[in-house]
Structure formats: C-alpha cells, structure tokens
C-alpha cells in the first residue's frame, strides 16, 4: 500500500514528533505551544498504534466476535498498544485542561499570551 506501510508510518510519526518539537521551541504564543504539546502527543500515539501492525495490510480491530478470527492472528491489530494509548490520550487531555486553565488565569492577570512579555513580567 505504498506510503501507508509499516516503515513509512513510523517515519511519518517521527517527522510529526520533530515538527511539533520545532513548533514548541520556536512558537512565540502560548496557545500555539499548547497546541503543539497536543500534537506531539498525537505523534507518539500514532507511533504506538503503528507498533500493533504485523503485516502491511490494513489490520482488523481486536474485537473477536467470532473465534475463527483467531486463525488470522497476524492480521489482527495488537490490543495492548491500543489500551495503553487510550490511557495516554486521557492523561494528556487532563493535563492540557489544567494548562488551559492556567493560561486563562495568566491572561486575566497580564493581558498577553506572548512568551517574551510574560517572561519579562514574571521572570524575577
């Protein structure tokens, strides 16, 4: 399936990882930083889900409604990374919710979302 095979998927998620890392390093605005933090989480999760593929075909979801499915074991997606990434998604969102609240409070205090200005105000 061309680009959507196992190796390329890994490289894509690594590329996204470092694109968002670049964004985190360079972005001047807080909201942008928060969005990049969410993006970097997505990159890692994509990487994890990619681990579940054994061959290059589109995997079957790990829902075994028919025991005969177990004969095609290598076509079923790995359930463990899925369960783990479910946990990771929720944890990531909880932290982001707290960060958004902090952003709110900061913005009300200083009226700016700019990193440089905030560091000048708060960096004593």
């Amino acid at each position: 399936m061309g680009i959507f095979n196992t190796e390329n998927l890994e490289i894509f998620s690594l590329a996204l990882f470092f694109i968002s890392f670049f964004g985190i390093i360079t972005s001047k605005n807080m909201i942008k930083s928060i969005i990049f933090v969410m993006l970097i989480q997505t990159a890692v999760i994509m990487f994890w889900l990619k681990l579940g593929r054994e061959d290059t075909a589109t995997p079957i979801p790990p829902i075994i409604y028919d025991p005969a499915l177990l004969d095609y074991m290598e076509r079923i997606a790995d359930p463990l990374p899925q369960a783990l990434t479910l946990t990771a998604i929720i944890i990531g969102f909880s932290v982001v919710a707290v960060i958004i609240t902090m952003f709110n409070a900061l913005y009300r205090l200083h009226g700016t979302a700019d990193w440089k200005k905030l560091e000048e105000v708060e960096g004593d």
Partner: protein
Amino acid sequence: MTQGLLVLWIVSSLAIVFETRTYRLIIYFSIFSLITSVAYFLLGSPDVAMAEAAIAAFASIFFIICIEKYYSRKENVEKDSAKGESLARKAVKAVPALVLCVGLFFLVIYFIPGIEPSHYLKHLYLQRFMTDVGGENAVTAIYLGYRVYDTLFEALILVIAVVAVTHMSYSEKTQVADGSHSEIETSRVAALSLRIICPIIVAFGAYLIINGHISAGGGFQGGLALATFFICRYMVYDIYDISVKNVLQWEEFIFAIIIVVTAIAVFLGAATYMPAAIVPIYQSVYLIIMNLLIGLKVACAFFVLFYRYITIERE
C-alpha cells in the same frame, strides 16, 4: 486514499507551524485531529479513534471558549513581540531550532533499532483474554482487566484535573450564581433541533457504554457522549441550575466506588472463589458495571470542565 491521508496529516501540522492567527490555528487543529482519528481507524483501533475524535472536539471547544474573550477576530497571534520584523529575519532566527530538529530527526532515524518486532505478547493476549477477563473486545479486556491498575490512576488524573480546574479558576467576586439565566435569548430553531438530537446522543452514549465489552467503544467514549448531552442542554436552556460542587462530589464518589469495585473484583480476585459455572456471567457483569461507572465519572468530569470554562467566559 490512505496514501494521501498521511501526506495531508503532515501538511496540516505544517500549516499549524506557519499559521499566525489563533482562530485558524484551532481550525487547523480540528482538521488535523479529524485526519488523525481516521488514520487510527484505518490502523485497526476504533476505540482509540473514537476517543481521539471526542477529545479533539472537546479540546477545540475549550480553546475557542478560552480565546473568544481575549482575542478579537482580526488580531494576530504574534502581533505582540514580532511586530515589524521582516520575514527573512524571522527565518534566520528560526535556523538554529530548525537545524536542531532536522538533525535530531535524521539521528533518530539512523539509530532506529533493526530488530524484528516481537509479537509474542499480542498473541498471548488475544488467545487468553476471553477466558481470563471475558467480553469480546480485547482492548476493553486489557483496559479493565489486565491493566486496571493503570486505569485507576488514569481515572484519578482526570479527578485531579477537575479539582485543579475548579480550584484554580475560582475567585469569589466573579462567581456566577446558580440558577441564573443569561441575557441572550436562545434561538427557537436551536432549541427544537437539539431537543430532537439529545435523545439520540444519550442513546448513543448508553449504547457505547453498555456494549463496551463486546464492540468498539467503552466507558470513556460513552461518557464523552453523555457529557455532550449536558453541553446541548446548556445551549438549549442556558441555565446554571446545576451546582458544580455537587457534581464534583458525585464524581469523586463514583471514583471511590470504582476503586472499591476493582479492589474486590481484581485485586482480591473474586473470580477465584466462585464456582466455574457462573464466572462468565460474573465477568460480563463486572465489565458492564466498570464501563458504566467510568462513563458516568467521565461525563461528570467533562461537565464540570465545560461549566468551569463557560463561567470563566461569562465573568
């Protein structure tokens, strides 16, 4: 189609890098998340895809609530400090970071371990989960069975986040009184269509929760759907008649019940004391109860979060 999808994925993330206006930033972010969740689905993980889609929707809502108050539509994100700088100077400034990231990218690719991945654990899980935990969904079996210890802490972190948000956004003089209406009159069309949609949403959430152990979905995804119901309710009636403190206490109470249930069912191993005949029934009852509790807890949590952000907006 799938080839184009990943390219679009990277392109939308690059669009976020180069975008400077906040509203568009959030729209690009939603597009990005949509593509992501389709890609997750194509990777054979409908549970994660559902969770990602719901989470992204909530995140965009929260972002928009946050910035709506503070930014006018035409304002630039980087107006503050980068004013008057030419594009070339900006580009020169970004060069060290670019070198670092590109260098790291190629370094990491160079060092990718060349070992054949081991799939031993996957096969073991798929063969064993039906007898060990029960249900038909292997993800739910791991999530609520084998690794329920992680799930407890994950539920805990949501509780902590909610407590933190209520604690931090609290200020005495700007509290919105319970039961107050806003001045803006709600639209009749909106109220009518939401009244049609709401039962469908609730039914969908209940379906996801109750069928979580035999099909895709589960407590978390269903709980998010239920939380959407609360948001619809807010949009229809626009009342603050639910006390956030009470909902917070309910959430904690449900979390306590979750701990007790897992302690009895998993940590003490209740199934080992039972006759073998009733174990399958007990297992599916356990899975349904856990999904139900987690769903209710998540719905409460997201309701509190949403309400908190809305009241901040109203101040």
